[in-house]
């Protein structure tokens, strides 16, 4: 490796490690404020290095960019490992968050909080890890809050062709206007006033507190 590609190795590995989709060299170069050609070279070297050293993962160039994968040689172990995962079912809190996301997607954490009345950060993180929801973009109008949507695995689990096949919420709500009202409210709440910077004050995210504000 040249000095420059050597320098790029650490940051590139870190970015590729956390990425959940292929990333192209241009985007990586932009984040690292580096020359795209250098980045491309560093990626190829890294890919070779993983292969030569027989590491547990590999770096592959696929449609859309570069992504780390586990090495196929170890697949039997991984299968056995995944099969051994804890079968604990979702908590009530997680189910609630999942239900809200399924019906209101794409929705920000703030939006889920607003409907559930409590902070939903931890459950959302666990739903992402379980592959039931995923980040789907940013809400430009709400401080770039991350938006969440359900995954294909979610659809498959319930045998749904697409989201339009979700049973209409109205069937379960006493008031047919409720859903629309909530959607409007969610949109309003997602506005800049409920930007995600506020999340550290979780104590205040409390339903009762909201009620006082509403009343006064």
């Amino acid at each position, binding site marked *: 490796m040249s000095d420059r590609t050597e320098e790029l190795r650490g940051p590139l590995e870190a970015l590729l490690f956390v990425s959940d989709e292929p990333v192209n060299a241009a985007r990586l170069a932009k984040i690292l404020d580096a020359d795209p050609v250098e980045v491309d070279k560093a990626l190829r070297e890294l890919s070779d290095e993983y292969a030569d050293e027989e590491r547990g993962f590999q770096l592959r160039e696929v449609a859309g960019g570069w992504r780390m994968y586990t090495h196929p040689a170890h697949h039997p172990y991984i299968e056995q490992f995944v099969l051994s995962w804890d079968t604990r079912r979702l908590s009530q809190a997680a189910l609630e968050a999942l239900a809200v996301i399924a019906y209101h997607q794409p929705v920000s954490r703030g939006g889920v909080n607003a409907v559930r009345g409590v902070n939903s950060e931890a459950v959302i993180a666990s739903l992402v890890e379980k592959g039931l929801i995923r980040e789907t973009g940013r809400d430009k109008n709400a401080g770039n809050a991350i938006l969440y949507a359900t995954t294909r695995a979610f659809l498959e689990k319930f045998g749904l062709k697409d989201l339009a096949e979700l049973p209409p919420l109205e069937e379960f709500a006493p008031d047919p206007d409720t859903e629309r009202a909530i959607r409007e409210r969610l949109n309003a709440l997602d506005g800049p006033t409920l930007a995600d910077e506020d999340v550290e004050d979780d104590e205040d995210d409390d339903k009762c507190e909201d009620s006082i504000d509403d*009343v*006064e």
Partner: protein
Amino acid sequence: MSYTVKTDIFEGPFDLLLHLVARQKVDIAELSICDIADQYLAYVDTMRELDLDVASDFLLVAATLLELKAASLLPQESMPELEEFEDMPAEEARELLVARLLAYKQFKTTAAELAARFEATSRMHSRAAGLEDRYLRLMPDYLEGVTLRGLAVICADLVYRREVFLLEAEHIAAAPISLEAHVEGVARTLRNRGRAMLSELVMADASKEELVVTFLAILELYKRGLVGLKQDVLFGDIEVASIEKEDR
């Protein structure tokens, strides 16, 4: 971090007391419980204007400081009873306060250390990308037993609860009834009487709005940990009892 911006807000009475005690670096000999007590009360006074609920948390320590101040001025006088420091000679009350303050200070320092650890750890990211597609089907079924219908019911339930909540709140807002005033009113009654039934707390001719606000006031007091609630039978009258603030 978020707390650094709210410079003049203290996390509790011990936090404020600690601040006052630490602030005056000079003339230790000149300082006394009298000065501290006065400063403390002055602060609580400004706080009271801002937020009565917050201020109430500070009152026990204020009362203790006052007792200590009185004791230092009139050492022979016997002191009025204080909830937590009840029947305790001034010297002992002071000793307890010092001990509490030292213990609090220790945990405040500990919290700072934890914050530093948290900060350091939050700069390391685990992989949250989820499994490669090929392994997804092997994952345990976290949704075992959950039906689509079940999911819809959960969502509709949440949405409906929220909606009713907002509608009620809007409805109340239209009437010139201040929830905070009702909270105070109910709290006052309970301070005097110790406990009361819901039916006693609302006037016989109360409007629906007043009934709702009184009920919300009771919920608010419950949330603040100031009252306990008891209902013997379904749809029966609710007993509201003031809680001795021994855990403050």
